[in-house]
C-alpha cells in the first residue's frame, strides 16, 4: 500500500483549519458591527482550499521524505507544519455589495450571521467526516467495527 495512513486525514485537517479561520473572520465582522469605518471582510474559502490542495499535490511530487519515522524532534517529519490555517492573508478579501452606513461601516449583521451558521455546519460536517475516516482506519486495523478503538 503506497498511501500513508494520514493521507485522507490531511484533507480534513486543511478543511478544518480554513473553516476555523473563516469563523474567526466572521466573528470579527460581527464584533465590529458598530465600529465606524470598519469594512466587512471574508475568507475566499474555495480559492484558499484549492491553493492548499495544489500546494499539497506539489509537495507530493517533490522528492520523497527520506524515511517516515514518527519522531517529533525533526521539523522535516512534521507535515502538519504546512497546514495553511489563519495564515492565508491573500484570500481574505473585502465583502462587496453590502450597504455602507453613514459612519462608513459595511457590516450586514444578518448576512454575517447566515455565513457564520453555514460555516459552522460545514466545519461540523468536516469534523464528522474526519471521525468517520478515523473509524474506518480503526476497522481496517482491528478488523471489527466494535468500540475497541483504544483511544484512537
Amino acid at each position, binding site marked *: 500500500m503506497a498511501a500513508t495512513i494520514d493521507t485522507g486525514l490531511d484533507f480534513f485537517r486543511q478543511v478544518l483549519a480554513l473553516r*476555523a479561520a473563516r469563523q*474567526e*473572520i466572521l466573528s*470579527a465582522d460581527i464584533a465590529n458591527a*458598530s*465600529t465606524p469605518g470598519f469594512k466587512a471582510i471574508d475568507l475566499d474559502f474555495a480559492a484558499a482550499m484549492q491553493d492548499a490542495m495544489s500546494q499539497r499535490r506539489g509537495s507530493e511530487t517533490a522528492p520523497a521524505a527520506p524515511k517516515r519515522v514518527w519522531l517529533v524532534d525533526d521539523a522535516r517529519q512534521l507535515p502538519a507544519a504546512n497546514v495553511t490555517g489563519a495564515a492565508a*492573508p491573500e484570500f481574505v478579501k473585502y465583502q462587496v455589495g453590502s450597504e455602507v452606513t453613514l459612519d462608513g461601516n459595511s457590516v450586514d*449583521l444578518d448576512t454575517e450571521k447566515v455565513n457564520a451558521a453555514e460555516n459552522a455546519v460545514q466545519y*461540523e460536517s468536516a469534523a464528522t467526516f474526519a471521525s468517520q475516516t478515523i473509524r474506518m482506519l480503526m476497522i481496517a486495523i482491528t478488523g471489527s467495527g466494535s468500540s475497541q478503538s483504544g483511544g484512537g
Partner: protein
Amino acid sequence: MSLFSTLSISGSGMSAESERLSAVASNIANANSAVGAGGQPFRAREVVFQAASLQGEGDDGDDPSTTGMSGVKVAAVVESSAPTHTVYDPTSTFADDKGYVQMPNVNPVDEMVNMISAQQDYQANLEAFNVAKTLAMRTLTI
C-alpha cells in the same frame, strides 16, 4: 488555534457592547440631572468603537490581510456636543436671573435606538461565541 481567538474576538465584542449599554443607561438615568460634575448640566456620553488587533498594537484595521484577527475596543468615551435644552422654571434653585434652567442634552429617542442596537449587537456576538464554543467542543470528539 484560531477557534480560541474567535472566542476572544466575540468576547471583546460583548464587553464593548455592554460598555455602550452602560453609557446608554447612564444617559437615561441622568436625563433630568440639572447639575452634573462641575455644576454644569449633565452631558450625554457616547462610546467610540475602534477595530483593534488582539495580537498586538499598531493595526489600524484598514488592511484586509491584517484585520482578520481584529476584535473591537472602546477607543474613547466622548460627550455629546448637542446643545443643552433650556427649561423655564423660575422656582428652581438652578434657575438663572431670567428664570431659565439648563437641562441635559440627553435625547431619549437617540438613547432608545442606541440601546436596541447595542442589544442586537451583543446578541450577535454571543451567538458567534456559542458557535465557536460548540465547534471547539466538537473538535474534541473527532
